């Protein structure tokens, strides 16, 4: 592999990322799947990096899930998105940051469409006006939340308490990454590093001391695929897609999977459990699975945040072996206590997959 | 007390051994024939059939009539050896009988008569028999000389190739070659010592006595003669000469109606052991045009005998039947090869359960085009035109979605699969209530005719069209082209239909004859029976066939098989037509025909056809 070749390519896929004053739009599903990730993102930006980031309680879904399930028309979608932009405009921001890959992809798509078909933008404005009497400005910059972390990866690394180094061997941890299809596959030039050799997560891993491992099915879908999962009859395809990725990455013995998207960590995490129950197969070391992290969780980990504050107890695949490798202390007795100290309940023990 | 000398022992022992060996072998074969075949033997044994068999044995086994027809020189060689030897024995026995006044003598006496009675002056017929035996011996010796020559220079006999010998054969052959020279020497030396003999042995004896110590040589020569005979008899059951006695058995069995079946039987053993390895089938085989030299019937039969048939020998054959047509022994080689394919192939039931409910139409006449005709739209078009013109109520059975007739499967030895296809087609034919079944493909024709057991008449389209013409249902005009008719193998040799196509074509064309036709007709090279041959080799065969067929510069080449047409059309310098196309082109176009449409197939219209005719 010629890194020089990659670097040349990466140079072609750079984009302007605003350095401050962000308007943040959350993801519909992340707060359920990995509830602390978005919180961590805000905490890192505000506390560690001292940035201004604004949220508006009135923001809604971008319609991405129904849009990609062919259940709404483009008009509905672009009107909803227009309303999001209008909230941003109303708050006095210009830099839109989406927490969700699919939202990011959809915003990009809508903005691109408006650029090519200005009459559609006009239509969106009219419909938004009719429905809500709102007006909006298009964002000056549109970024995915990972772009922001990527932009400040070196600053974060400078503040980090832990490096992605295996304590026992002194070697960098081997990380496989999954970019999320909607991040750059549709609009490679809107993602850092493009679609073939995306750099946004690689940049973080390298900055945090880890080593990225390529694997054959790196670009393959995580298995969410919207209709693949949501329609139960198709669910076999969803899990088969994830399995294809696991089988492809296992020979490289990755220490963890870093993900970019709301659906990806969820399916890469939960399907490991489902596969173990259905086929008795696990992909990690010693009967554990391969831990799956969101980039916010990773950032929190290197910054030394309490693993349970990062929501790592909500993972199906145990993250403790990874924490042990990095040398991060954790208190198992605190694992299932909420922020108020109340017991939040403990999941049923899987029959195959090993957990703590 | 009869005369005796120790030297007769090798002969006597050999003869006894041979008799026992042959008896045991043939008894076992006949005993193991399938029950119904054995019944035929029992009922035929004491009937006129045995007389016919004796006649045939005389004509074929002794005179070798068929070999004569194929190749006179080769025929003479076989005849001089077989019939000559037979006469020697016959005359020897007469001589004995007369000499000993009707008393039976042991078999060695007639054989070695001259040793025991070199010059019996008291015997009144001595001079007569001496002359007779010398003439016969000369004939036999000339045969031996020819056999030597054939072995050395086969081309002298007009044969391109001759058969290859096995070690057992060599022993027997050597013995056979020296038997008569030794007899000649023994009798000559004896004549030199004691007188007797005639123009041959007498003169030779006098001649040898000039420079040889004949008094010392005569006795060893008799030993050598006896020894050669004994050796030949003992080695005969293990050599190709087994064919001599076995052919006699074959002729008898065949006259009783025993025949080859789908599987090997002990009759197959009789047949394959009757092969004299004469090799006429080699030159007859068109595969030699493509330089394929090791699969010809003589080699195939040999491999069956040695129990080492490989797929190449069994499957690399056009099954054209030209070797059958020429085989002097009349071995049913095609059936044996077919049976070997059966034994080699996988028999699988229910391969075609996916075919069901193809739809049936009620009709008087069924037309079945067959797979190959479907690749020849002009034949299809002609047949449809003619069927419409005939006014008969017909059903074009495989117009849209027909299935295969089963013949190709059968040719590949897949009997069970073929039966399944046959059952499916048969059910449709029976349901249609048709009384006549017509097909434009000889491959289909053969299987419909022989295997379907339909209970209705099955006609090749040439027969059917001829009938339409003869019945006045269609009328043909005479064209002026000279044409050659090519006999498709499956139609001609395969089904015995040679004349009907010619009669039909004679209505419109001037038919030329060619050197290789009818029973000697050529294969087009397209044969479905050969699964092994590649297309380049096929083309060589086709090319040679076209060369022979067009030797008299005809304007047209006509055939009765869509596959032959396809094969020829690729390479032929002159147009190639199917019979139906010729008939369709010479059809007298009445206004009536033109007006007829697709729906014109009912009985009502037949009546109106009659009105128009009137």
């Amino acid at each position, binding site marked *: 592999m010629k890194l020089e070749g990659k670097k040349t390519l990466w140079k072609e896929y750079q984009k302007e990322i605003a350095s401050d004053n962000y308007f943040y739009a959350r993801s519909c599903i992340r707060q359920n799947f990995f509830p602390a990730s978005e919180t961590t993102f805000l905490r890192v930006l505000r506390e560690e990096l001292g940035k201004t980031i604004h949220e508006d309680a009135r923001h809604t879904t971008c319609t991405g899930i129904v849009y990609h399930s062919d259940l709404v028309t483009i008009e509905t979608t672009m009107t909803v998105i227009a309303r999001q932009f209008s909230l941003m405009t109303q708050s006095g921001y210009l830099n839109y940051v989406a927490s969700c890959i699919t939202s990011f992809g959809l915003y990009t798509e809508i903005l691109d469409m408006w650029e090519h078909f200005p009459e559609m933008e006009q239509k969106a404005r009219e419909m938004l006006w009719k429905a809500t009497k709102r007006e909006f400005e298009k964002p000056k910059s549109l970024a995915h939340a990972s772009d922001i972390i990527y932009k400040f990866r070196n600053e974060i690394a400078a503040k980090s308490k832990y490096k992605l180094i295996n304590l026992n061997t002194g070697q960098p941890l081997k990380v496989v990454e999954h970019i999320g299809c909607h991040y750059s596959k549709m609009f490679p030039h809107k993602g850092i590093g493009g679609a073939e050799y995306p750099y946004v997560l690689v940049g973080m891993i390298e900055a945090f001391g880890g080593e990225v491992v390529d694997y054959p099915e790196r670009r393959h879908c995580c298995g969410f695929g919207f209709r693949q999962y949501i329609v139960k009859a198709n669910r076999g395809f969803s899990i088969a897609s994830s399995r294809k990725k696991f089988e492809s990455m296992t020979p490289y013995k990755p220490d963890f999977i870093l993900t970019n998207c709301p659906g990806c960590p969820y399916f890469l995490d939960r399907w490991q459990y489902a596969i173990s129950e259905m086929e008795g197969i696990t992909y990690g070391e010693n009967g554990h699975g391969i831990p799956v992290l969101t980039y916010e969780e990773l950032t929190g980990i290197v910054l030394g945040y309490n693993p349970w504050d990062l929501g790592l107890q909500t993972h199906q695949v145990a993250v403790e072996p990874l924490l042990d490798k990095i040398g991060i202390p954790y208190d198992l007795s605190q694992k299932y206590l909420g922020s108020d100290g109340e017991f939040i309940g403990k999941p049923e023990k899987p029959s195959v997959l090993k957990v703590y | 007390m009869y005369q005796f000398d120790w030297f007769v022992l090798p002969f006597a022992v050999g003869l006894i051994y041979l008799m026992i060996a042959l008896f045991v072998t043939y008894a076992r074969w006949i005993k193991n024939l399938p029950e119904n075949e054995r019944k035929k033997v029992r009922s035929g044994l004491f009937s006129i059939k045995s007389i016919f068999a004796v006649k045939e044995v005389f004509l074929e086994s002794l005179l070798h009539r068929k070999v004569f027809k194929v190749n006179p020189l080769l025929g003479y060689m076989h005849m001089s050896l077989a019939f000559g030897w037979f006469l020697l024995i016959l005359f020897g026995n007469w001589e004995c009988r007369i000499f000993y006044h009707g008393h039976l003598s042991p078999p060695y006496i007639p054989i070695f008569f001259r040793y025991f009675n070199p010059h019996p002056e008291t015997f009144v017929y001595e001079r007569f028999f001496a002359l007779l035996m010398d003439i016969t011996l000369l004939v036999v010796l000339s045969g031996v000389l020819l056999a030597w020559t054939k072995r050395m220079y086969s081309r002298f006999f007009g044969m391109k190739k001759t058969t290859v010998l096995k070690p057992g054969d060599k022993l027997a052959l050597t013995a056979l070659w020296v038997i008569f020279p030794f007899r000649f020497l023994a009798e000559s030396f004896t004549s030199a010592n004691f007188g007797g003999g005639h123009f041959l042995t007498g003169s030779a004896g006098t001649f040898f006595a000039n420079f040889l110590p004949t008094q010392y040589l005569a006795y060893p020569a008799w030993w050598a003669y006896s020894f050669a005979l004994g050796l030949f008899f003992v080695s005969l059951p293990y050599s190709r000469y087994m064919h001599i006695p076995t052919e006699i058995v074959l002729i008898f069995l065949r006259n009783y109606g025993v025949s080859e079946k789908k599987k090997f039987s002990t009759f197959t053993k009789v047949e394959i052991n009757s092969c004299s390895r004469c090799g006429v089938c080699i030159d007859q085989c068109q595969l030699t045009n493509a330089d394929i030299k090791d699969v010809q019937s003589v080699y195939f039969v040999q491999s069956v005998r040695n129990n080492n048939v490989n797929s190449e020998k069994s499957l690399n054959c056009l099954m054209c039947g030209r070797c059958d047509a020429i085989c002097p022994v009349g071995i049913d080689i095609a059936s044996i090869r077919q049976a070997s394919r059966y034994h080699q192939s996988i028999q699988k039931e229910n391969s075609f359960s996916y075919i069901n409910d193809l739809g049936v139409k009620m009709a008087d006449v069924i037309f079945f085009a067959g797979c190959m005709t479907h*690749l020849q739209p002009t034949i299809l078009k002609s047949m449809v035109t003619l069927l419409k013109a005939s006014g008969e109520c017909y059903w074009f059975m495989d117009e849209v979605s*027909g299935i295969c007739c089963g013949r190709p499967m059968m040719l590949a030895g897949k009997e069970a699969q073929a039966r399944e296809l046959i059952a499916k087609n048969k059910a449709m034919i029976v349901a249609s209530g048709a009384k006549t079944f017509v097909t434009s493909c000889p491959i289909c024709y053969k299987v419909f005719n022989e295997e379907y057991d339909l209970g209705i008449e099955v006609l090749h389209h040439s027969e059917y069209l001829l009938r339409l013409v003869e019945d006045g249902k269609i009328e043909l005009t005479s064209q002026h082209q000279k044409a050659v008719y090519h006999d498709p193998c499956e139609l001609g040799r395969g089904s015995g239909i040679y004349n009907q196509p010619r009669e039909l074509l004679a209505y419109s064309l001037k038919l030329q004859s060619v050197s290789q036709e009818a029973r000697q007709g050529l294969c087009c090279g397209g044969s479905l029976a050969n699964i092994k*041959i590649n297309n380049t080799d096929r083309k060589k065969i086709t090319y040679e066939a076209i060369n022979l067929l067009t030797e008299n510069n005809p304007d047209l080449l006509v055939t009765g098989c869509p596959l032959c047409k396809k094969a020829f059309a690729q390479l032929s310098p002159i147009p190639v037509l199917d019979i139906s196309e010729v008939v369709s082109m010479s059809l007298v176009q009445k206004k009536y025909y033109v007006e007829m449409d697709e729906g014109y197939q009912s009985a009502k219209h037949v009546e109106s056809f009659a009105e128009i005719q009137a």
Partner: protein
Amino acid sequence: MAKDFGYTISCDRQIDFDKLSRSMYLEVKKAEPSVDACISCGTCAATCTAGQFTDFSLRKFILLLRRGDSLSVIQSIDKCMLCGKCQLVCPMGVNTRGLIYSIQVISRRIECRNRRVVNKM
């Protein structure tokens, strides 16, 4: 052991070229070398008598063998009626009937071999 979630993991349709064995193709090729001339034009499948009723396609079978997916060929090859139309239309001179006959023979051999292995177990 397997827990029922109400769905199963779908099979991968991908031809994993490195995992499949092409030994059957090599055997077939030895028996009928003209198979190498096939260019997948599909004329054979278009004219096929059996193909009217089933998905029998010689073109496809040759490809499947070339890719090492022998099993589906073994399962379907006996649907052929050996009528020979394919042979007449093949533009590359493949001896298609000989090819099918050979595939049938080799299929049976492989089936027997597999059966023997099962019996041993």
